[in-house]
């Protein structure tokens, strides 16, 4: 269970399947990936570049497009750290303590995965909308939530809430408390234990969760669409802006913004790969799996 020596590479003889089966399975996987992942990605970029780079630049330099990009980055910059902190706290609580209602908490963490994003958005409208539960109070105090940035952040936080926690809970449960206890017996205080023992132990899962969370935060459409109000230049995020451009017959611009969105996702993946490659030595020396 603890730090087994890296296993030797499996000898070829273990693969008893005939060559034809192996080739067929590999081909199937590649074909599937190509058809459902690679092809759409290629289409997005070719459609975007068809009218030329200048058109892409113009589409992105458009004032409303810039506002959408800024808003998307802002929303991600607020909601991702929030969910990272929440995810670590929740995973810590679930993995390391016994308390009544624990299984309920785990179920609740999963809720945003199972609820349609549109419903999530509507819930916030029902809570904070002018006719909603807190609507009159918010209006009386001149606080804008729905159809403004706070509402978009709320909806995004809600939808992306499970990503970090889901990555961390199984890992922290498997790791148990022994490392933290060891650090405590060595005289370390709570914060030091967290920073020097817990955090390094979970950092790859945390990073992965944060990257997934970020990708979803930037790409979220459904919930944000409900609470956005679609005010151009103010409450339109990139995905909403793509839809608007598409509906305005500005297909080239729509694909330009869409390809930027796709590019952000690719950069996210690349960042993860680079980090893993950069710290490969340490990973090999210390990773369990």
């Amino acid at each position: 269970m603890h730090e087994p020596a890296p296993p030797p590479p499996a000898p070829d003889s273990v693969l008893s399947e005939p060559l034809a089966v192996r080739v067929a399975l590999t081909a199937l996987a590649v074909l599937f990936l190509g058809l459902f992942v690679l092809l759409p990605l290629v289409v997005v970029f070719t459609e975007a570049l068809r009218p030329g780079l200048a058109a892409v630049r113009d589409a992105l330099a458009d004032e409303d497009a810039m506002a959408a990009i800024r808003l998307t980055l802002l929303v991600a910059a607020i909601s991702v750290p929030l969910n990272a902190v929440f995810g670590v706290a929740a995973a810590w609580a679930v993995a390391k303590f016994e308390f009544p209602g624990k299984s309920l908490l785990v179920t609740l963490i999963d809720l945003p995965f199972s609820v349609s994003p549109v419903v999530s958005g509507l819930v916030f409208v029902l809570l904070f909308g002018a006719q909603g539960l807190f609507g009159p109070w918010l209006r009386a105090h001149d606080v804008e939530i729905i159809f403004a940035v706070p509402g978009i952040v709320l909806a995004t936080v809600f939808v992306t809430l499970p990503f970090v926690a889901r990555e961390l809970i199984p890992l922290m449960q498997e790791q148990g408390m022994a490392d933290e206890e060891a650090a405590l017996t060595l005289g370390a205080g709570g914060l030091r234990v967290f920073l020097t023992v817990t955090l390094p132990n979970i950092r790859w899962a945390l990073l992965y969760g944060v990257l997934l969370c970020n990708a979803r935060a930037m790409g979220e459409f459904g919930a944000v669409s409900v609470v956005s109000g679609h005010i151009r230049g103010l409450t339109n995020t990139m995905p909403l802006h793509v839809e608007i451009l598409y509906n305005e017959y500005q297909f080239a611009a729509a694909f330009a913004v869409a390809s930027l969105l796709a590019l952000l996702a690719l950069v996210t993946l690349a960042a993860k790969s680079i980090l893993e490659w950069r710290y490969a030595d340490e990973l090999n020396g210390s990773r369990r799996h």
Partner: protein
Amino acid sequence: MPIRLTRRALDHLLAIAAFALIAMVTLAAHAQTALLNVSYDPTRELYKDINQAFAADWKARTGQAVTVRMSHGGSGKQARSVIDGLDASVVTLALAADIDEIASATKKIPADWQARLPNNASPYTSTIVFVVRKGNPKAVKDWNDLARPDVSVITPNPKTSGGARWNYLAAWGYALETKGGDAKAARDFLTAIFRNVPVLDTGARGSTVTFAQRGLGDVLVAWENEAFLTLEEFGADKYEIVTPSVSILAEPPVSLVDGNVDARGTRKAAQAYLDFLYTQAAQKIIARHYYRPFKPEAADKADLDRLPKIRLFTLASVFGDWTKAQSVHFSDGGEFDRIQQAVAKR
């Protein structure tokens, strides 16, 4: 090494936080909105031009800069957003019932709002026509043809789209006129049409994209202006407009959202914006975008000549008023729900 790595992670967090702060400040600096026009789907191109003209006009008259922000969507959905708190300065929707709804639900608009501006607060009118594929392969000529089982019809959902409600009422009026004024005959006629609808989009623009971009359906029932825009965007060599024998006079109204502009202190600019819609300059722009201006004399004759001559009946002459039309046809359990049930039953 491990501690250094942790510090690096902290640095990243700090960088993100700093970025968030900067982004927020930047956003705040950009957030000095003056007016918000919450409109229905097909008016995107129209208001883009109107807003520019108004901003220039306002600047010339007062020396102040004004930005008019836009929010577009299905008329019913947009009304719902304003009811839920979307901070609209003015609403420019597809039909009076949606503004009535805002007025009664929020009390932010007085009940007599339609009397505050000329022509029942409609700076322009429009009507409903058909768009078919070039050469009209299914030979669609009139409303009758939409009920033919071999014709696939694209129209948005009357529950969320104002345009779709006009489509529906136009077909209903036609049925009453040609099938002897019988509500049952009209209902059966509409049922036959809705059986031919493969997809109900939430807004008029969604339907246009479904028809023109995704290539679904034989005929698109659309706003006149949207029909012309389709030809403009996707090519007159691919689509053509078919004018039915009779259609409805659609009156998309506008109103100030008094509650919101008074809270923001933008009543003067917002009122000026609505008044501007009735000026010569705006009426000219309206005609250019294939709407039927309230003051045709202000428009270019060439623009007006593009619009076909259709016999138009008014909502009032057939359905009384919007409140009545709304409750009979589009409320829960109304005629449209019955039609949908009949369609689903088959």
